[in-house]
């Protein structure tokens, strides 16, 4: 699909062409969904969060001042919606024992070794993400998956730049510890 700038489609929507909004959704849906999914940890809720965020964006498009980019604005809405949803839900925190050791069947024919490895790493990351706070999950996602700079992350989350660096450092350390522990436990299981 040939995308023009976000501002072009925003102006189209503001002029009454509602369908122009679908271009904005198409362009940003994966980033929005990924952020929501990484924060809340399940597909159904992530879809609900991302959809609600897009609807909020549509409703308040008139008030969009264009001081920040459209994606930053959208991310901010997704981030806040996801954080508040997780805080109201507040499931019990997972323990290391909760990680399914046989989540990927390495012996099966369905996966190549490379695919199985990738799948395993994804599951491990999802598990480690659920072990840190929802705020840290947001920061990790924006930094690693979206490769945003701390200025942009600060604009999205409302956390100061220096604080983001500190929080990212802590979250990274915690995740690495969790991943290492889980991998050790997995090795013992498979041996």
């Amino acid at each position: 699909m040939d995308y023009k700038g976000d501002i072009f489609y925003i102006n189209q929507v503001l002029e009454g062409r509602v369908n122009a909004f679908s271009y904005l959704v198409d362009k940003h849906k994966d980033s929005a969904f990924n952020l929501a999914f990484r924060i809340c940890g399940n597909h159904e809720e992530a879809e609900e969060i991302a959809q609600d965020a897009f609807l909020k964006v549509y409703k308040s498009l008139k008030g969009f001042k264009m001081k920040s980019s459209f994606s930053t604005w959208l991310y901010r809405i997704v981030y806040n919606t996801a954080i508040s949803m997780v805080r109201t839900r507040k499931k019990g925190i997972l323990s290391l024992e909760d990680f399914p050791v046989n989540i990927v069947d390495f012996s099966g024919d369905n996966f190549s070794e490379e695919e199985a490895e990738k799948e395993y790493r994804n599951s491990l990351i999802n598990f480690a993400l659920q072990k840190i706070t929802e705020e840290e999950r947001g920061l990790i996602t924006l930094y690693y998956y979206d490769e945003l700079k701390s200025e942009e992350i600060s604009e999205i989350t409302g956390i100061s730049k220096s604080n983001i660096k500190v929080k990212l450092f802590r979250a990274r350390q915690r995740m690495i510890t969790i991943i290492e522990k889980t991998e050790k436990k997995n090795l013992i299981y498979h041996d």
Partner: protein
Amino acid sequence: MINQGKYNDDPLRQYISPGNRVQAPEGFTSKIMSRIQVKTESIEQRSKFHVKSWVPIISILVTTVLIVTAFLIPHSETGSIIQKVISYLPELNLSISMDKINSLFTLVLPGWFSYILISIFILVLLDRAFISIFHREK
């Protein structure tokens, strides 16, 4: 541009990369667009409803003003007000003759007419009340 040094220094980069992003489910865009369509239609309907509801409101207001005026204007001064109105009429150069206009002001309505007017007014109020109760927007 991916900074290779950043990847080597950071062990978490072995696990997370932009390529591992989860994609939105199929039909995501169409779901949002249909939700927007429904919202837009309901807003349009609501605004139409508001426009429709203005008509009886204005008629009620006019009727009320007329009834209140009828009660407030002293009986003795009614004649002088009508006389003033009639005195302005020839200046308007109306096609209807002044005799016919004068006959309108001398018309005497039966006593029960005021009761009918008040009954119509009460029925209109009841009608509005029933509409707002039984035709709420879903």
